[in-house]
Every structure is written in structure tokens, then in C-alpha cells.
């Protein structure tokens, strides 16, 4: 390591003030702080500081995403093999084939998004924000594996620039950048991101392979029908939904893989348990409530039990990784409960009333992102009122 350090130090002067590459100091700073924790002292009191910085904070989220990513690679390979009628008993080749499909998506996302991030850092003369490490990986994981790479590039550009940088960068944004990118693609290029044909990266050759997601199947249940029956007819059991061997966005299918990530976020305290819990409670209460009113003249999806609702579509992934984005979520403790709960409720309601695209988590979170400051405002007002009351007594 000493050798690497010496080599780096030899080139440092180019990036310092007066050097020929002075403008690109943020790039130098980024690579240097990524490789080495710098001996940079405090400038004022308190004279000592905690070891946790945003780099480690963000990297925790990236690590938490790894199980979902790895399972996503396997599942992509599996779905393609099913569509082509190939054998599906060997895990490693399926994983390898899936990886070959999703790796380019991740690389494009990181490269294009990273370009914007660096550009803004250089123009604004501030350090490169590691928040992008998370956005750049979250975004591919909520895309279908068949997404054209140019759309990945356009989407992440929109997400980073309009979703984040125009507000001033990480920490200043109102909306979750990854979801902003996803919503942009959804409204601009619905053909490539919704429907039954996008969940495999190959054209199906097997007769009768539908490729529809369980959520789409459930939404197609006829009026007054039983949604679980339509799922069973399509060949999806609850176990498939939980394990994740179903068509869907790359990282969203496996509840187990997502929960492993959730465990890491909760153990380290990086993700807010208040938000994750209240999203799930909101979704649970809403689905149980809808089960009660389900009947002959109402859409069949109302009859879907809560355990199916929680384990399909993007809900679990959104609850763990998207709703918990601290910047765009509510920031007060009470606010987090309200924010999360309403995300859960809205997700289920949108699933019901948006049959064209029966996934509600993305829109529910973006919607609540907008409302988060309002929720916080009222929580803060309550604190102010309490203080005023003290004077009156």
C-alpha cells in the first residue's frame, strides 16, 4: 500500500492550486479519499469526531443491496432459460448468463450517472458526493432486464440531473433520484418498462410462456374473482413470490434477498426501522381491509391476501431501500411513521386503481416524497406549540 500511496503522492501537485489539472481537483479528491482515509484534522471544537462518515453510510446501503443484486442475476438467467425452454437445474450457468445481462445495465448506470455527478462537482467546486454510489445501483435493480441501454443512460441522466443536482446535490433533493429516473422512463417509454413482454431479455420461444408478473396476473383477475386462484393458474405459489423465482424488475423479486439487506440496514441503524415497519403495516392494514370489502362487483385483486400483496411487485424493495432514503423521507420521528404508513396504503390503492401498470410503490413513494416536508412541518409546529404553552402556564 505504501507503494501505491507514494505513486499517488507523486501526481498530487497537478491537482493542487496552480497545477495544470487544478479544475479537476474533485476527481483527485474522490479517488484519494476512496483509497485512503485522509489525516484531515478538525478545524474547530469538538476536537474529536465519530468514525462514521457519509462514505461508510452509503457503502452500507450498497452492501445491503448485494443479496438482491446477486439473486437478481440468477433470476434473470432463470427467466430467460424458462422462456427459451432451456434446462434450469444448474445454478451457476444461469447466474452467469443473468450477470451478463444485468452487468451492462449497472455499468451504464454508474458510468453515465457518475459522469454527471463529477461534472457538477467540478463546476460547483465541491467534493464528489458518495450518495451516487447508492442511486447508481438502486436504479438498475428496479428496471426490467430487457431495458435498452440507451434508456438506462437517459433515465439515470434525468434522475441525477433533474432529480438531484438541480436542487443542489445529495442532501438537497426533494425526490428520490432513482425513482425519479424510473418514473421518467415509465412515462416516456412505457412500452419498454411495462407489460408482459419486458421481463425476459430474450424473446420467448416456448409456447404458452406468458412472462407476465404475478402482480399483472392478479390484476387481471375478473370481477368478483379470486386473485389467488388466478395466481395458481398462472403457476405462481406464495413460495415462488417469497423466494423470488418470478418475472419482475431485476432486484425486486426476492423477498428473502431483500430482507437480508434489510437486516444489515437495521442492525447498523443506517435504514430507519420506523419507515420500513410503517410501510409494511400500512400495506398490511389496507390489504386486510380490502379483503373485507371484496365481492362480486369489485375487481378480483381486492381478494388478494396480505402475504401475497407484501411479497410481490416492488413493495418490499421499495419499503427497505427506497422509502428509507433519509434525504427524501420525512425527517422527524413521528413524521416517519406517518410517511411510511401512507406509502403502504397508497401502494396497495394504486395497485387497485391503476390497472395499466399495477405497481404502486414507485408512485406512492414519489408522492409521499413531495408530502414529507409538509408532514414534518406539522410535527415541528406541534413542538413550537408545546413550547408556547409552557409560557402561558
Amino acid at each position, binding site marked *: *500500500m505504501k507503494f501505491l*500511496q507514494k505513486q499517488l503522492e507523486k501526481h498530487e501537485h497537478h491537482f493542487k492550486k496552480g497545477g495544470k489539472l487544478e479544475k479537476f481537483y474533485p476527481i483527485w*479528491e474522490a479517488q484519494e*479519499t*476512496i*483509497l*485512503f*482515509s*485522509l*489525516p*484531515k*484534522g*478538525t*478545524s*474547530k*471544537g*469538538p*476536537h*474529536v*469526531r*465519530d*468514525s*462514521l*462518515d*457519509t*462514505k*461508510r*453510510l452509503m*457503502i*452500507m446501503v450498497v452492501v445491503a443491496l448485494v443479496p438482491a443484486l446477486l439473486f437478481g442475476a440468477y433470476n434473470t438467467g432463470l427467466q430467460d432459460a424458462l422462456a427459451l425452454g432451456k434446462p434450469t437445474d444448474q445454478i451457476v450457468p444461469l447466474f452467469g448468463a443473468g450477470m451478463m445481462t444485468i452487468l451492462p445495465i449497472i455499468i451504464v448506470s454508474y458510468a453515465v450517472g457518475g459522469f454527471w455527478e463529477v461534472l457538477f462537482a467540478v463546476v460547483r467546486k465541491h*467534493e464528489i*458526493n458518495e*450518495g451516487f454510489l447508492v442511486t447508481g445501483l438502486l436504479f438498475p435493480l428496479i428496471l426490467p432486464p430487457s431495458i435498452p441501454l440507451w434508456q438506462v443512460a437517459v433515465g439515470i441522466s434525468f434522475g441525477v440531473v433533474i432529480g438531484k443536482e438541480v436542487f*443542489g*446535490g*445529495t*442532501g*438537497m433533493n426533494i425526490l428520490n433520484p432513482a425513482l425519479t429516473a424510473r418514473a421518467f422512463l415509465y412515462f416516456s417509454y412505457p412500452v419498454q418498462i411495462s407489460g408482459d413482454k419486458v421481463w425476459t431479455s430474450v424473446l420467448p420461444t416456448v409456447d404458452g410462456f406468458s412472462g407476465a408478473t404475478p402482480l399483472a396476473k392478479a390484476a387481471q383477475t375478473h370481477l368478483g374473482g379470486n386473485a389467488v386462484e388466478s395466481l395458481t393458474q398462472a403457476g405462481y405459489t406464495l413460495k415462488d413470490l417469497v423466494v423470488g423465482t418470478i418475472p419482475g424488475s431485476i432486484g425486486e423479486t426476492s423477498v428473502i434477498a431483500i430482507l437480508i439487506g434489510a437486516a444489515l440496514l437495521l*442492525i*447498523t*441503524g*443506517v435504514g*430507519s426501522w420506523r419507515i420500513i415497519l410503517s410501510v409494511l403495516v400500512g400495506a398490511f392494514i389496507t390489504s386486510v381491509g380490502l379483503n373485507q370489502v371484496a365481492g362480486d362487483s369489485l375487481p378480483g385483486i381486492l381478494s388478494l391476501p396480505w402475504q401475497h400483496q407484501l411479497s410481490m411487485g416492488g413493495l418490499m424493495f421499495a419499503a427497505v431501500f427506497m422509502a428509507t432514503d*433519509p*434525504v427524501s*423521507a420525512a*425527517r*422527524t*420521528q413521528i413524521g*416517519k411513521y406517518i410517511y411510511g404508513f401512507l406509502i403502504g396504503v397508497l401502494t396497495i390503492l394504486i395497485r387497485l386503481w391503476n390497472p395499466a401498470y399495477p405497481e404502486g410503490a414507485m408512485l406512492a413513494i414519489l408522492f409521499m416524497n413531495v408530502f414529507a416536508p409538509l408532514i*414534518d412541518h406539522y410535527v*415541528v409546529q406541534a*413542538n*413550537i406549540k*408545546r*413550547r*408556547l404553552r*409552557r*409560557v402561558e402556564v
Partner: protein
Amino acid sequence: MATFHIKKGYTIPMQGEPEKKKVVLDSPKTLGICPTDFKGIKPKLTVKEQDKVKVGTPLFFDKMQPEVQFTSPAGGTVSAINFGPRRKVLEIVITVDEDEAFEDFPQYTKETLQAQEGATLRDALLKAGLWPLIRRRPFNTIARLEDSPKALFINCMDTAPIAADPDFALEGKGELFAMGVAAMKQIVGDSVHVVTGKDSKGVFDQAEGVHSHQFSGKHPAGLVGTHIAKIDPINKGECVWVMNARDVVSIGSFFQSGRFPIHRVVALSGTGVSGTGYFEVRAGTQLKDLVGPFLQKGPQRIISGDVLMGTGRKVEGFLGTYHHTVTVLPEPTEKQFLGWFMPGFDRPSFTRTFLSRLIPGKTFKFDTNLNGGHRAMVQSGLYEDVVALDVMPEFLVKAVLCQDIELMEQLGILECDEEDFTLCSYICPSKMEISSIIAEGLELMEKEG
């Protein structure tokens, strides 16, 4: 006696706790005073270089409140007055005579003291330069003459990491403490709160006719801001006075002896020195006389005060008037390869993001590393865990950043002081200078309000 337990907070697991032994240092040749120790004053010098001064002779006064004098901690010659940019007075240096002369002030016993008018005692404190030991909240500036404080809070505990333990430092000074309290009671009336730690050994029990309270818990349980908030919070338009136990002892000693108190006990702590302990030194001691013999090799930061609220000074600098700890910590020198990715058994953290959390009670050798770079605020809900006041730290900080004075006041900035938020700066992953931001907000409030 009321007892309070503070549940929030954090004790930074630092090594370098001062050893419980007392050493008396020889009287040094050079002493000094820094007008910059006193927040919010505009100093006007009354001496020039080469003037002869006695112990207790005025050196400068505050242009805003000319009655408030600042006096010499030594008898001798003013050997230097050091100015900073825009002729700001930084230090007044005095070369000590072999045979020091003292200004004489009236002497009292406890009984004669209690027969005095408050105004007489107040004027004596002003004249002797001891008035600045009384500070006021809000704003934590020197008490104003026109104040009518609703209470005086005397803080007899310290929960800051590796700071001096007042119980040990002031051992045997119980009588002087009681004397000081008696004097202050004449000045402020009966509403005097004495707050001790749970493990206090009775040094402060001799004070009569006061409201006693005991606090326990992690830092900030020992901050006067926490005590005020729990016992008698400041509402709009009100103010309280606050003092440190050590300064009450100084006032007691002043009234008993009729002389400006020149001795004090400070703790030397931290891992940047080879030996720690409690030292009886002169007020205004040059730091090198205290830390010089113990300084470790390599760059060290010498802090007059504790690690949270002290100020970094050069070794030629002087001990701050309000400080009773001197902390020395190594400056960071080593680069750490992939520091953010390692499991971190050796990295202390308030959060659970490092594996060092698995070893409870472990202490660490801290240096002054910022451990990261400045970023915008990202993580939420962390600051609440280390602030013991009924305020919403994050929103208060944001109100300060956008200079919204009305909102700042509504969110309770007047109940706060910089020191109540030092742990927020400590734990912030975005390395925001939260306590400095609060200080800026208070400064703005004082100027505009």
C-alpha cells in the same frame, strides 16, 4: 433534593482520563490573559506595555459595560500586548515579579458577608475583575448589570469526556464554596440551584439555603443547559445566571482573603501527554509550563478546555479563564487504506456501523481526525439522541442556516447554547459543524433581537 436521570446522550469512549493525583506547580515567570476568552465583549485597554501592575489591577474593560473590569492575574510588568488582525487584542502578557504585590479588597467572614447589601458585594466583584465569572443564559455571555435573573445555577459536575472531575479538583474547598454561595445569594436572592453529580462526595454540601439537585447519565447530563431545561426552563424574556463550582470557590476565596484568587486546579488529560493528573497552577498559566514536560513526540493539539468545548492553542498560549481542563491529543498523520470499508474493530462510533460496537466498554486512543469530509445533511434522526433539551436539533440548525430569526426563536434557540450541541457535531456523518452553527444563530439573535 431532586434527582434527575438523563437518558439521552453519549459518553465518547476516550482514553486519557486524568489520573487522580494532585501536583503543585512552581510559580511561573510569565502569565497572561486572553480577552478573546470572553464572548461578546469589546475590550478597551487601560494599561500599556512596561506598566507595573499588581494582582487585581484592571488591565482592560468592556466598552459595552464599562463597569465590567478584567484584572491582572499576576503582579509584575506588562511585558507584551499581542494584537491580531484589525488590532484585536489577543493576549496581555505579564512578567511576574519575585515579590508580587496585591491590590487590597475588603475581607469578610461568612457572618459579615451575610450582613452586606448585594450591591456592595456586586461592586467588589466588578472592581476585582471577578464579575466575568458569572455568565447569563440566553447567549452565555458575561452577566449584565441590568439583568434580573430568575435563578442562579451553580454547576458542580462535568460529564464531558476526559474532563476534570470537580469533586476531586475542589476537594477540601467546601468552606470556600459555601462562602461563595453565601455571597452570590446576597446578590441574586434565594433562587440558587446547586447541581451535583450522582457520585458527588459531599464537597458541595456545605452550601446553605440553596435548592440542591442531582443529575446522572451520560453527557450532556453535566451541562448547565440540561440542568436549566429540566429544573426551570428559560421562557421568552427571562434570563438565568450560571456559574461553575470552581468559580464560586474563587469568589469565596476572594471575599475571605480580600485578594484576587490566583491559584486554581486544572486537570491535564489526553493521550498526547505522557502523564496526566491534576495540577495546582496560577490563573493565566502559559500552557508550556503545564504540558511542556509531558508532551509526546509528533504533532499534538493542545486544547485549553475539554475536547468538546475547548479551544486549540499554541504551546505559548495561556490557560483560558473559564477552563479547568487542558487536553492534549495527537494530530492525525497516518493515511488509512480503504478506511471506510474495513470492519472497524478499532474505530469508535456512536452508531452501529463499526464492529467495535461488539466490545462494550472498550476505550479508544483518539486523535483529532475529522474522519471524513464536509457534506450536506443526509442522515436524519441522529442528533435527537444526544441532545437533552426539548428542541428539534435538525430543524433548529436549518432555521439558523436560512437565518430565519422568528423560526429560530420559536424552535427554542434561546434555551440553547453551543455546548449543548457539541455531541451533534461529534456524531454527524456529514461532518457538519452543528455547534458552531448554533453559536452563529445565537450571535445573530443577540444582534437582531
